[in-house]
């Protein structure tokens, strides 16, 4: 079977599913019912209906923001503290501050790993576990967001970096970019020293496939501080809004 048709048949199967649920689920609890079941094929045995829940449904569900919406994205990850202040300006309007836009950031942990469970998608996960080192905030009147995190580690083939995605308030993508870190003697990258794995095999910005063309240093953040006091990162990005 062609993949396309296979997918279609898969979707058709899924689409028909809610009918079965609707047949046996009741939104509001009433008394236990003795409806004759209309479930066909899927249940073994008697196929009789299941008693509907008669309990009040927990606390009434409330609108909950995405778990990315937070200022501290550390989630208990070990590492040197990093406070990242990002300022978003409008390149279509004399670089004035952009208020009320969404800023997503994500980066790897001290070992160079991103949060993502079960790459194959077959693994279950604890719902209290978190999407560590990923966050989303809305820019304030100064076009700023401030995230608390840890200094990113690194992984093979890439210089130290933080991913950034800026969206309008309604969610339309304005800019996808990455923030580079100054490197060399006296920099934060040198002070952190690549954490446990050291800096052997580290990819410098000029060899990095994302940053190598940034000769003007537009993607380069200002990073100050120390391993004991923590680091402060400042970065301004102009986006066309």
């Amino acid at each position, binding site marked *: 079977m062609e*993949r396309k048709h296979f*997918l279609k048949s898969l*979707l058709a199967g*899924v*689409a028909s*599913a*809610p009918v*079965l*649920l*609707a047949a*046996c*689920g009741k*939104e509001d*609890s009433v008394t*236990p019912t003795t409806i004759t079941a209309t*479930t066909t094929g*899927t*249940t073994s*045995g*008697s196929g*009789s209906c*299941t*008693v*509907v*829940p*008669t*309990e009040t*449904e*927990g*606390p*009434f*569900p*409330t*609108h*909950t*923001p*995405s*778990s990315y919406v937070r200022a501290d994205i550390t989630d208990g990850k070990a590492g040197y503290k990093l406070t990242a202040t990002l300022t978003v300006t409008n390149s279509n309007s004399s670089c004035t501050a952009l208020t009320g836009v969404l800023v*997503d950031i994500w980066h790897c942990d001290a070992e160079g790993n991103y949060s*993502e*469970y*079960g*790459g194959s*998608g*077959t*693994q*279950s*996960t*604890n*719902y*209290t576990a*978190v*999407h560590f080192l*990923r966050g989303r905030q809305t820019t304030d009147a100064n076009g700023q967001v401030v995230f608390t995190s840890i200094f990113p580690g690194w992984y093979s083939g890439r210089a130290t970096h933080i991913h950034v*995605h800026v*969206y309008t308030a309604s*969610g*339309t*993508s304005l800019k*996808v970019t990455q923030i580079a870190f100054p490197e060399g003697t006296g920099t934060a990258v040198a002070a952190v020293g690549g954490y446990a794995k050291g800096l052997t095999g580290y990819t410098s910005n000029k060899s990095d496939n994302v940053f190598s063309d940034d000769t003007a240093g537009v993607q380069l953040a200002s990073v100050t501080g120390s391993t004991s006091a923590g680091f402060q990162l400042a970065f301004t990005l102009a986006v066309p809004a």
Partner: protein
Amino acid sequence: MTERTITLCYRKLIDASATRPWDKLVFAATYREFCLQAQYFNQEKRYHSLAELLQHAPGAAQLPFLVSGAVRGYLQQLNGQVPDVADNLGRLFLKFTQFQFNLLASDVLDQARHQVAINFYSEPLVWHDTVGPYLLVSAPPGTATAGEIPTRLFQIQPYLSIHSLQATG
């Protein structure tokens, strides 16, 4: 019958036909998150369906994980209780901590095509006996208890399955 310890999996499908408040909130939140996150893998705006993204856009396989960030807050609202699945007295009784989120279909241009599934994996239960179409279960004893133990009687229903089994007798 040999006593066995089982865990159950309840697969909750949520799509545009959702009517319950929690389901509708999850539907809207995951669709919005999909629309946000999909743009990263679709910067040239060439694709609009999840199937196209998965087939053509490198890295788009991360989308289920990325979209699941929108659902975690709603899972916490359930207070560890698997929704919908009631025992024969109509009481919710399954506890969970493990879940898996699936993005089944979606389309940035058509919310009606958005479909997700949440698999809830129950805490272990001791399966004592089978009474007609019902399974008689109890929570595993935390410490050795003598005498009577509280039990639950429930029926395997569509989208509810035994996920794992361990003989204990």
